[in-house]
């Protein structure tokens, strides 16, 4: 592709590009004009033709024409080929699906934040099963790449949940565990290397519909040099977004909560997600999971109710939904049946 681009340029323009050693259209556009005009660093032996600003303009315009695509109308984004970019993965739980407008979107990075022990990994395991369901049941019929950075992968719980879904949809006959690819990385450099080198190989060989990183906070929290941390976070997010675009899969990153330092307005200390502003800018949707001071009796146990809140999302308002984590996985809070009250009895009379 790059040789074709260079060949169609006029001779002297091609010389300029080769002098500065910038040959692909992407590099030409992201190199500042000054680098083309500055010929002082070239050796005296090579024939250097003086480069004028007009030449640089012609070169950059040619590169722009090579890379640019024609805008399409928003109307045509509803056609099936384009609309598939905004597909959703169901949660397997009606309340959560209603709250998020259908489930997790396969676009951009979805962030799930929450304190420890609140049920984030449970949601992930259920999503890992749901993504393998066929399209008419809310899944994508594709596998999962699960990257753990904290504890070992909870395989026993995964087996439990996959059995629940096998019982729910016996006709599908899916081997849920076979399509979950697990990797454990505890440090930054190996994780970045895994995501940039090994993950694309996996995605070429198997159909992956969901990439999970549990958790991002554990990896990046220990940094002291904020510049390096920002660079690494951006590199990670950039790789993930490239795969999400190319293979149309959803990306979920887990984040933890920390308490905010005292601000100028003397607000009380509240829980905010970790990793600060730079990470928040990279995410597209943010969901916060927390415990509600309410308990539900199931059989002879008291289970704490959890809630999922949409902090921000481009397509849904800030909804809240409550759910429970039981042996059946993530389920709705059952609504107790209505009991007839005295008022009703009066009306009947």
């Amino acid at each position, binding site marked *: 592709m790059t040789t074709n681009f260079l060949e169609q340029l006029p001779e002297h323009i091609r010389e300029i590009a080769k002098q500065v050693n910038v040959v692909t259209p*992407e590099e030409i556009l992201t190199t*500042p004009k000054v680098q083309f005009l500055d010929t002082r660093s070239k050796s005296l032996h090579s024939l250097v033709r003086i480069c004028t600003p007009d030449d640089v303009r012609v070169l950059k315009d040619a590169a722009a024409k090579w890379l*640019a695509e024609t805008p399409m109308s928003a109307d045509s984004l509803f056609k099936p080929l384009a609309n598939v970019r905004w597909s959703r993965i169901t949660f397997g739980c009606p309340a959560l699906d209603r709250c998020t407008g259908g489930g997790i979107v396969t676009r951009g990075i979805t962030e799930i934040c929450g304190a420890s022990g609140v049920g984030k990994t449970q949601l992930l395991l259920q999503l890992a099963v749901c993504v393998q369901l066929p399209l008419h049941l809310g899944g994508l019929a594709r596998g999962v790449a699960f990257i753990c950075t904290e504890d070992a992968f909870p395989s026993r719980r995964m087996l439990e949940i996959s059995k629940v879904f096998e019982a729910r949809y016996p006709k599908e006959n899916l081997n849920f565990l076979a399509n979950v690819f697990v990797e454990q990385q505890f440090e930054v450099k190996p994780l970045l290397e895994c995501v940039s080198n090994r993950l694309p190989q996996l995605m070429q060989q198997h159909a992956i519909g969901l990439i999970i990183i549990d958790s991002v906070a554990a990896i990046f929290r220990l940094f002291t040099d904020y510049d390096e941390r920002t660079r690494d976070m951006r590199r990670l997010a950039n790789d993930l977004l490239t795969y999400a675009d190319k293979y149309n899969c959803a990306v979920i990153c887990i984040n933890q909560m920390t308490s905010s330092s005292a601000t100028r307005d003397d607000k009380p200390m509240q829980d905010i997600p970790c990793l600060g502003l730079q990470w928040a800018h990279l995410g597209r949707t943010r969901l916060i999971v927390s415990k509600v001071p309410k308990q539900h009796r199931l059989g002879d146990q008291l289970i704490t109710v959890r809630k999922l809140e949409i902090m921000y999302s481009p397509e849904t308002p800030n909804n809240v939904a409550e759910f429970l984590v039981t042996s059946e996985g993530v389920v709705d809070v059952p609504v107790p049946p209505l009991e007839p009250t005295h008022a009703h009895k009066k009306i009947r009379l």
Partner: protein
Amino acid sequence: MLSLQNICKKSSFDLHNKRCFRISTGNKSLDVHLKGGIPLGKLIELIGNPGTGKTQMCMKLCLNVQLPRTLGGLDGESLFFDTRRDFNPNRLKELADEFERRYSTAGKSKAMNAEQMLRNVHYVQCTSPAHLIAQVRMTNKYLAANPNIKIIIIDSLSFALRMIQTVRQRYELLLELYVSMRSMLYQHQDQWIVTNVFTNYYNRRSKKYCRVPGMGRMHSILVNERIWFSQNGTYYLGKNEKTRRIIE
């Protein structure tokens, strides 16, 4: 020989009388402060943390520009550069349906059709800085082919340039983008909207991190107007954190 007559043709009285068309933002108090809406021929920046409604305002402006002149629009089309993948056509359709409901009952001569409104929004996804720069450079030709495009939105400029490592390179590329945008502003008299976010800047004098608009001070000088979005829904207007005015 150039005579003074040819150079200074317009007086400020002429400029004052020239009608400046504006696009309503959808928020009444913001419109009042902007004297009717966002003016044409300017580069406006929307700045705010994630989740404050910048992309929603951009989508609303895409639809507002299609309203007739009497209702605060410009009867024109819009061009949307999406670098953050925040755009969702389903959400745009929701907004367009609401527009159709609101303006069809008013009994105006030209009915607002949701599908037609969606067709007037041109969309491009830019995945890398090179791609965005290429698109902006080619916009001139696209505007010549579609002269009815009145508003161009880049959401968001800071996200597109985030992967460029050196500050010097980012600065130079930003300037090159401005040169392209400005030439189109003067030529076509349309409007460019750019979204930006905050970043933490280490102030060496006070040895503290303070929250400043991203992309540097030169960018703050080069945009014409800046609208701030905050978490609790209030808007601010102004360039600097100290000189901004709150919109009630």
